[in-house]
């Protein structure tokens, strides 16, 4: 029994130590987005490589030098979790780790025991990518209270901002005591596809449901988010159309995004000239890093900007080989 407790403790402590070091280095600036696990590994002199694997998700080996191998064949959230799990093997001093699908479905916090090293690496991955302080920071910025954070649609949006899968987050919320074990089981019965479908509201039907559907509002202002090329960004903004101001998306399109849907919905008020909510859905389509900026102006005077919406999107999909950052640094060196 205690060997498992020790494994969970070791994984937790290692993740906490790294966060303490990272926060000290960055001056503890509150973030609103995901922990960049690939950048962290690159910066640690551990070789990180993506290859097209079969059933495996990833591996860690220390053979003359430490290296982490991650499959190109899964979603970014799963690639990030796999990389964090392998990083766990590395920082916990394990010699080797070869990991398949099972890392996604088992939990070190529940019933049932398995290999202690795997349990320690799983704990590390969860605590590294989903530390309680980061969950609290995001919830605070979004205005999600204790009741809200138990709703499946909110948990899904939180999982996107943390860059993890819905399932992984639900398990970790239970670990942090934010959800009870019973609540987490109920939340897990919800279909993520239904949550996505509801957000897209029949305006768009994705050809591939592995895409993520982000709901963005002015609460996401100035955030930096990590997303995938096929993801949809449903942006909901208040529009002062009564005063002649309309949201202008020229810069969104210039930055390389496609507007796939654009609607207006009256906010609950019968007054003539009351505000409306403008809901537009954008998609990046290809990997690139850009700011998504929309401005609320009067059509006849684009210099009079009543409001601006601005977020930074890093749209990425790791290709075979080193990370893009590693390649660019090696070429510049």
């Amino acid at each position, binding site marked *: 029994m205690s060997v498992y407790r020790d494994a969970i403790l070791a994984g937790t402590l290692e993740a906490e130590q790294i966060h303490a070091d990272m926060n000290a280095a960055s001056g503890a600036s509150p973030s609103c987005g995901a922990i960049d696990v690939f950048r962290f590994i690159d910066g640690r002199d551990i*070789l990180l490589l993506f290859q097209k694997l079969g*059933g*495996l998700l990833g591996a860690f*080996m220390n053979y003359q030098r430490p290296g982490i191998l991650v499959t190109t064949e899964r979603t970014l959230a799963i690639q990030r979790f796999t990389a964090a799990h392998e990083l766990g093997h590395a920082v916990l001093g394990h010699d080797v780790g070869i990991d*398949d699908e099972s890392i996604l479905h088992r939990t070190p916090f529940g019933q049932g025991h398995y290999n202690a090293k795997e349990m320690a690496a799983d704990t590390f991955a969860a605590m590294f990518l989903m530390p309680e302080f980061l969950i609290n920071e995001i919830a605070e910025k979004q205005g999600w209270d204790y009741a809200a954070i138990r709703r499946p649609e909110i948990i899904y949006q939180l999982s996107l901002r943390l860059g993890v899968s819905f399932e992984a987050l639900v398990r970790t919320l239970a670990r942090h005591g934010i959800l009870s074990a019973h609540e987490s089981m109920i939340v897990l019965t919800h279909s993520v596809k239904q949550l996505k479908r509801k957000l897209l509201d029949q305006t768009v039907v994705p050809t591939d449901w592995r895409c993520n559907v982000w709901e963005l509002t002015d609460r996401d202002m100035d955030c930096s988010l990590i997303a995938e090329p096929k993801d949809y960004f449903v942006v909901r903004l208040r529009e002062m159309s009564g005063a002649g101001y309309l949201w202008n998306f020229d810069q969104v399109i210039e930055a390389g995004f496609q507007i796939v849907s654009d609607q207006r919905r009256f906010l609950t008020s019968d007054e003539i000239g009351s505000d409306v909510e403008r809901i537009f859905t954008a998609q990046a389509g290809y990997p690139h890093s850009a700011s998504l900026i929309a401005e609320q102006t009067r059509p006849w005077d684009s210099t009079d900007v009543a409001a601006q919406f601005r977020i930074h999107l890093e749209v990425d999909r790791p290709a075979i080989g080193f990370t893009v950052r590693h390649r660019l640094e090696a*070429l510049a060196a």
Partner: protein
Amino acid sequence: MQPLPSERAALADRLREAREYVGFSQDEVAKKLNIPRSAISLIESGQRRVEALELRALAQLYQRSVGSLTGEVTPAELPEDVAHLARAAAKLTDTDRLELRRFAEFLSSRNPASEGK
């Protein structure tokens, strides 16, 4: 002494494989070495000699030793603990086995320039 045509072809194959393994394009490598892209293409098809300095730069970029590129150093066997775990993992496909071996080879073909870091 001139290398045998087959040796040059083998070197060419290893260079292409090493580049593709870490994800650089011919264009990127050419810019880094300050030579035309066509030169990389010729080197990788065995139609152009590789200068010693170029080979060193390529080894550095691809994170391998010069010896592993020239074929003087033969790849090591899969370490026993990796081989053991690979046998134990249920869902391993042939692709996975191949990729694990390639990765172990890659890690063990350390670039001497980065040693002692």
